[in-house]
């Protein structure tokens, strides 16, 4: 009996975050007065839109590098590809494919850069990749706001600022809007299902499952467990870490392209900033931690996080009569959830370390 209770408690503690979210949503949904069909449709759209971005975080976690805040670099690469195709007016699925092909070498380059820098900052990968994101945001602005239209030729004058160079704040992606989502049109009882996007996401999930079993995947897990041991076993630690970041960056780049084809407009200077934060918050809401994340966490997290995202402004409006409050609430929750997950992880790590030290000193660890 006691043991059963213990394991139940363990389950609660392990999954505290998703359970908390479920409870909050359970209260907020009736208050918000949204219909079930609307919510299901909205969740399907958001799953197709965001899952790929969130999935791109899995591989660095496997390699023990924590949450890859550097995924915004990939998002930037994807946006540059999209800017080019909307300039050349290449539409439809070919447009998306072309954007992906253009941005792949860029993403590889940025990923390599990110990985190399993170190898110089072992033990503080997260904060470094976080700052790197800000830094590259500056470089991105430099290129897109000053380089495009002056150094890089842009043919479409409608995209360029009136001063003659630099891309406008909003880039229209009308030509590729929802073209992937509507590639295979499926509709069940008035709910549209973006099947093609889901197929790509499924394909990617298979890739992750397969990748874990390859030699490289096994190496990454070993590196994630303990760099010293892995190095002693003859695994090229730095190289493996580099590759994990490159893969993540390239995937984040594709993820951003999928995300933006669904949205249909590109906020040239903001879209990538939000991408990283929301993806990381979603993953953590799904019950993942800094050192352990599964595909299931991704989907659960996207649904729960965005459920709250959709519901909270309306709930705030009906509850307190102020939509702005719900807006701030969800901002607070996204940041709070990341803090909570980071704290829990660091705390656990410190406790383990203390225990190890105590046992080293020969004192019985309780």
């Amino acid at each position, binding site marked *: 009996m006691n043991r059963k209770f213990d394991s139940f408690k363990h389950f609660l503690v392990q999954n505290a975050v998703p359970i908390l979210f479920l409870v909050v949503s359970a209260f907020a949904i009736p208050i918000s007065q949204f219909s079930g069909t609307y919510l299901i449709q909205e969740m399907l759209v958001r799953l197709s839109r965001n899952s790929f971005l969130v999935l791109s975080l899995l591989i660095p976690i496997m390699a023990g590098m924590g949450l890859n805040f550097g995924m915004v670099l990939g998002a930037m690469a994807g946006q540059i590809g999209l800017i080019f195709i909307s300039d050349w007016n290449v539409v439809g699925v070919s447009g998306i494919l072309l954007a992906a092909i253009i941005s792949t070498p860029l993403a590889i380059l940025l990923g390599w850069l990110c990985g190399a820098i993170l190898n110089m900052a072992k033990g*503080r990968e997260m904060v470094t990749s976080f700052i790197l994101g*800000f830094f590259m945001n500056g470089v991105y*602005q430099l290129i897109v706001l000053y380089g495009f239209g002056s150094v890089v030729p842009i043919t479409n004058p409608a995209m360029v600022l009136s001063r003659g160079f630099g891309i406008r704040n909003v880039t229209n992606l009308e030509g590729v809007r929802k073209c992937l989502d509507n590639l295979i049109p499926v509709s069940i009882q008035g709910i549209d299902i973006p099947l093609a996007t889901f197929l790509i996401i499924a394909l990617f999930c298979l890739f992750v499952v397969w990748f874990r079993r390859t030699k490289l995947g096994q190496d990454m897990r070993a590196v994630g467990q303990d760099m010293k041991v892995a190095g002693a076993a003859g695994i090229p630690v730095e190289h493996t870490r580099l590759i994990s970041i490159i893969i993540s960056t390239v995937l984040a780049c594709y993820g951003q392209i999928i995300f933006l084809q669904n949205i249909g407009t590109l906020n040239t200077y903001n879209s990538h900033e939000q991408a990283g934060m929301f993806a990381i918050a979603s993953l953590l809401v799904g019950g993942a931690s800094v050192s352990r994340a599964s595909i299931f966490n991704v989907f659960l997290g996207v649904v729960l996080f965005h459920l709250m995202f959709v519901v909270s402004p309306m709930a705030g409006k009906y509850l307190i009569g102020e939509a702005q*409050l719900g807006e*701030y609430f969800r901002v607070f929750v996204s940041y709070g959830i990341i*803090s909570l997950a980071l704290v829990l992880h*660091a705390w656990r790590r410190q406790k383990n370390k203390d225990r190890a030290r105590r046992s080293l000193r020969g004192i019985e660890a309780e």
Partner: protein
Amino acid sequence: MNRIKNFIEYAGWPRIIIGIFLLTLFVMAPFVRVRLDASISDTLVRFGMNGVMVLAMVPMIVSGCGLNFGLPLGIIAGLLGAVTSIEIGIPGIPGVLIAMAIAIPIATILGWAYGLLLNKVKGSEMMIATYVGFSSVAFMCIMWLVLPYRSSNMVWGYAGKGLRTTIAVEGFWHQAISDIGSFRIGQFFYIPTGMFLFLALLCAAMWVFMRTRTGTAMTTVGSNPEYARASGVNIDRMRIISVILSTVLGAIGIIVYQQSFGFVQLYMGPFYMAFPAVSAILIGGASVHKATILNVVVGTILFQGILTMTPSVINSMIQTDMSEVIRIIVSNGMILYALTRAVKVKL
């Protein structure tokens, strides 16, 4: 030759490059019809405004807690003090003092809790500090809407409640500290003597504190935790004291900033305020584990100098405002440099 080499080694390449860059801007300013006296005055004013917040970085760096990305926590305490002071409505120096008197206890409590938290997460303080700062700002966004402030100078006119995003301190304590003994030379050159004196006072206090028993113990905790443990220093306590100090200085810093700037910025205003302060002290020569008062002064002058000079000079040179981009690249590049340079965290 050797001396130059030593100097370069001592100052580090990034600082020298930034210093030369700033010098070039000052030299070029007259040629592109930017008034030099106005620029220098601007730089000095901004140095005074931001100095205290940069100083707030010192205790935490010294005690080994790393860069205080959680500065917004202190800033929030300062904002609460400022807003309450305006609500009470006493103008001039007493108003500022009331703001500080309210802010400091709040900052102490917040800093204490924040310190307890950071003690639980040794080794990843910086990432958590960043997000503690972010979430506290987001939390206060809710609070600014809900808190029962009623002064018509601060709340939204039509609703009669909920604080506005920016609140003017004009008519309360605008430049209250700055104007103590301030003077002007010509039309453009203005020296906020009071603000400098205040900053100097705090710097001196910090300098003295670092040489007290507690101060040296704190430094030992940061530089050599094993030795500190062996000599019976309570590491966790020292770290908490440093975090409290840092948070309180952040609170005072934002009040000094506001009284000079003229506005209280609420909601998402303090969100990114930690970053300029962090990069300023790094530009001044601090590392993730080592910082002095000199680093604060040099760093703030260099960083604020670049922030003041790039918009005006580069703007007149190429008719394009690149200051924002330069600011992002310089400040984050500096933080990145410090993070990658530092030796692995000592455990």
